[in-house]
């Protein structure tokens, strides 16, 4: 049984991530803009909408594709960007 505390904890994770993004802004402002649909989805849950399995699958596929892009290795270091 999932409790209200657990749901709240999940949202706290989102809140912490958004806070981290804001700290980096405006350098990664684009990341915030791209995240609007996800923030809206969380807002929808807060407003009382219910998620479906189809929604979960579709969003996960979309995020996994973006994750694939992020996980691509960096170009080799020639010593000029070792920081």
């Amino acid at each position: 049984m999932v409790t209200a505390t657990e749901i709240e904890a999940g949202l706290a994770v989102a809140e912490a991530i958004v806070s981290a993004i804001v700290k980096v802004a405006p350098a990664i402002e684009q990341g915030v803009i791209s995240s609007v649909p996800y923030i809206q989805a969380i807002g929808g849950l807060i407003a009382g909408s219910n998620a479906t399995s189809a929604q979960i699958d579709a969003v996960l596929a979309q995020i996994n594709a973006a994750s694939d892009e992020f996980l691509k290795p960096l170009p080799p270091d020639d010593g000029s960007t070792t920081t």
Partner: protein
Amino acid sequence: MRKLVAAIAVVSGLALAGCQTVSLPSLNLNAAVSLNTIYGIENAYGIAVNAANAYKALPLCRTGSVPGAANVCAKRSVIVNLQAAMRKARLAVNNLVGFQKAYPSVDITNTLSAAQSALIGVQQVLASGAQ
């Protein structure tokens, strides 16, 4: 944001209260709560991935330079750490979704905790990149 969290606590409390008092044989309310929880975590994961991609898109900092307002750049070390954290988060969130799908009536607390922990790990690396 705290107001929003407080609001969800109230909404969730009402939903859970309803779960205890309303009997709807055709509706598995526990499953509905699980789906909402998973969807919330999934969207937090999406936010994290977008932030990570945006950070990675910055030019890499030159050796010995420090990122700042006058030198907007990404540290190679932060991206490498972020990729390691993101691999864990991806696995954990996918495990969470897969577990709920395979066992819709089983408690998701453990897989949920793993996904939350992994996302907190990503958040911590992201925060380190902001310093």
